[in-house]
């Protein structure tokens, strides 16, 4: 009999071995559910390293950023002493390799598969895999972010790869289309379903496993995110004392931005609530509040302390998460203006929408609440996945900026979306998730 694993690390390692055991036993499809930062990418890389001894392993990701992050992960593993693998990065014609990995040893960039035939592992987004000649075939491939991948993108993968490990975070944003989707809703195997749901439908014998520990989220966040957004609960892999933010420079002037940063440093959360006024999506006061917080974060000379040691906070450790692309553009512009004014490198902060931030990790995340300033709570803005993505990108702290009145908005909300016959109801109700999160945030208001 096995002894019960005691530490989070042992629990995670046991799950990894279980997954590898399933794959070597010849399962055609295996699905691993992973909460935010549960070592999903580490798992993908490790399985890739182990499996290439038998055959070249394609890794299917969803965006170019994710592909580059995957490559960076392999490079970092090798620096820490992992067995080297020959890496291939398959990409589109207009892609430019990022400067930090462009000249990496043992890594080949190419837009054609023929240049990569002696690579052990080939990483490319699903859209690129859809362009290769389907005469190719592989016995085994790994799909990363399978809950973010649309079912139609899995078709070419299925045509070329004969067995799959799918890994993904079920709490993320579901795939969508810009077209009128009425014709596809509620259909069996609709192209709008996730790749994970498709595999579960067509391959009922799929082995489904879950990673039990979030290494990313600090303990103050793991419980909230687990309760509000996940069916299978998970815990934080670190203890509260292992993560710490400390200010090097005390704030010169008191203000909400300074309070927010101080509260976030102490408690891992901060909530900046602006006056309750309905505003267009590009609410200038919210933009200003976010810029203030970012300026405060950078000027405070913050030291990050975690299980790997202590180091200063860099602008690229910070992300601003928004809902709409025009919000992203307004925040980026405001940060560029702030840089021109103060010279602080605030524009090096990553600003993007929840859809783009999915699967990425930062030390501190500033979130523009999806319901901020709205008069209605539409399905799009209520989407539990959107809020979950925004609130689960951080290792240290999360600062939420919003207009007041969200509780009234939720209370006064009447759903107008149609219910589709044949479509399974979402397991998570965005409305309840929003309320749970709001209750939590109110305790950290500044």
């Amino acid at each position: 009999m096995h002894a019960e694993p005691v530490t989070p690390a042992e629990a995670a390692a046991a799950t990894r071995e279980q997954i590898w055991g399933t794959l070597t036993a010849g399962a055609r499809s295996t699905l691993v559910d992973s909460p935010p930062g549960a070592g999903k990418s580490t798992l993908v890389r490790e399985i890739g390293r182990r499996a290439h001894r038998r055959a070249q392993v394609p890794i299917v990701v969803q965006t170019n950023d994710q592909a580059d992050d995957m490559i960076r992960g392999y490079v970092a593993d090798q620096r820490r002493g992992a067995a080297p693998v020959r890496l291939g990065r398959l990409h589109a014609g207009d892609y430019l390799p990022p400067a930090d990995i462009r000249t990496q040893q043992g890594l080949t960039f190419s837009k054609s598969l023929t240049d990569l035939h002696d690579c052990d592992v080939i990483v490319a987004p699903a859209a690129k895999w859809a362009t290769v000649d389907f005469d190719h075939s592989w016995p085994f491939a790994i799909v990363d972010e399978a809950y973010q991948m649309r079912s139609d993108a899995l078709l070419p993968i299925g045509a070329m790869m004969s067995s799959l490990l799918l890994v993904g975070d079920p709490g993320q944003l579901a795939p969508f289309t810009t077209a009128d989707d009425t014709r596809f809703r509620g259909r069996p195997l609709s192209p709008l379903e996730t790749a994970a749901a498709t595999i579960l439908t067509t391959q009922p014998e799929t082995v489904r496993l879950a990673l039990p520990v979030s290494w990313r989220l600090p303990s103050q966040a793991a419980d909230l995110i687990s309760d509000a957004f996940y069916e299978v609960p998970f815990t934080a892999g670190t203890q509260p004392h292992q993560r710490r933010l400390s200010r090097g420079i005390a704030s010169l002037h008191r203000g909400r931005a300074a309070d927010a940063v101080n509260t976030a440093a102490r408690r891992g959360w901060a909530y900046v609530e602006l006056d309750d006024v309905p505003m267009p999506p590009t609410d200038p006061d919210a933009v200003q509040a976010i810029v203030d917080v970012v300026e405060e974060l950078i000027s405070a000379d913050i030291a990050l302390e975690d299980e790997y040691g202590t180091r200063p906070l860099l602008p690229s450790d910070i992300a601003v998460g928004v809902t709409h692309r025009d919000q992203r553009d307004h925040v980026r512009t405001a940060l560029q203006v702030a840089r021109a004014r103060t010279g602080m490198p605030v524009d090096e902060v990553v600003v993007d929408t929840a859809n783009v931030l999915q699967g990425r990790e930062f030390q501190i995340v500033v979130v523009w609440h999806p319901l901020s300033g709205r008069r209605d709570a539409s399905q799009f803005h209520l989407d539990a996945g959107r809020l979950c993505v925004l609130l689960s990108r951080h290792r240290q702290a999360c600062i939420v900026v919003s207009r007041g009145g969200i509780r009234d908005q939720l209370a006064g909300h009447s759903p107008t979306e149609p219910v589709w016959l044949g479509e399974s109801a979402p397991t998570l109700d965005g409305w309840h998730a929003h309320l749970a999160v709001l209750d939590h945030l109110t305790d950290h208001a500044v």
Partner: protein
Amino acid sequence: MNALRTHQALQAAAERRAVTTTTRRHVHLSSSPLVVVGYHLAGDPGAPLALVWGTARDETPHCMVVPEPRNRALRFEALDEFAIDLLAYLSRFEVRDDGGTCVDAPQLVVPNAGTAEWLGGIVGRFTRNLRTDGDAPPPASVPLAGKHLSFFGDLLPGSSLMIAATDALTLHWQTGQLPSEDLNLAALLGWIDPPDGLDGPAAARLGEQAPPAGPDSDPNWDADVLADLIRSWHVAGDDPAAQAAVRGELEGEIREQLVPAWMDCWRALDQLVALPAGDHVAGRWLSDRKVWTAHSARMAEGRAFFRNIPTPVQAAGRLRFLESRTQNLQREMAWDDPLVMAALVASGEALAGRVVAVDADRQTFNANGRRQRRPMITLEPTLDFARPAGTNLYLSRHPSVKLEVLPNDASGLIRVEVLKGANQTKTLGLLPTAGDEIVLSPYGRPEFYQRSTVQEIPWTHLQLVEDSEES
């Protein structure tokens, strides 16, 4: 709703008259459309009660009635009348040009999206697979018409083969009432084209008094008129003279209910035809003609099948096609129509301004240290432009010219550099010149990617349905 639309709605409410939201017409209008309006029995879309149709406004439209809509034989007998006319109308569009494409395509005009969905969806679906052999066969024309209707029920964005008048009007006008109120064609026309002496809201109230344009009838009329007539039909029994009398009476009542809506469809077309067609309308109509040609060939060969549930491979292809057509329609409308583009300028996605300077010979160094030509345009924006440096835009006049916004200085001027499309000797002519008023839009020419096609359904999408015993 974008900011400009909101403004236009408020303006319409204040001026008590609809406001045009376009300067061009974005639908194709046929010179001989078939205008159809109809009712089904309340609560039963599968039981048509009446249809009124015609191809010329100055002729009395045809009318079919089903004196007992729940009687299947009567239903198909009546639908046969419509089907024969529909097939005759469609057969006028079989003439092919040298390239094998039909020289013109049919156009069905209905009052609202509800009627379009009813005819193309439900009526098409329950008639297209009827068998014409067996005990009580429907007339052969009915399943044929059902297939055609199903074709019209499954069109792509930007298609003009079937026009729902309320949709076409709200694409070109903004009223001061709620979007749900715009679904009433008579009320909508009241806002757009009020009769002399009335303003928009008053004319809309008058329109709301008119009998509904279908496919649902007025419940009071159902109770007061229809119920009695159906009762009379049953009383008439097998007496042909009594039956004919009831039919005549019902047809009279139906004409009173539906002919106003049929006339309103023509009024809607009058409003639309007054606008000059956008440049890309002809291109979209050409693709409509091709779609029609393909459908008519499939009909001729007896291959016009309509799957209720597409295979995963078909659904994926269809979705991708729908996505690209949706996107193309948006772009083309914005390129064709300054008022549509203005909505993008107002929302800050596009940038309008006057060209201050053009440096066509500017050169920069690329990542590999090589010189490259990157002409720069400096412009004075009409509205504040709050997009960050690095945003990609395209000349709206020449969407092949791709630009990138450069970091701005304090001058308030916006500088953009040409990434492609106007950085070679032969394309430099596409650059604007100082003094030009230009618009930089987010819409470039659609890019095509080489994709391999999945032929067979792969294992990931193959659902094995086990034979289960009836329980």
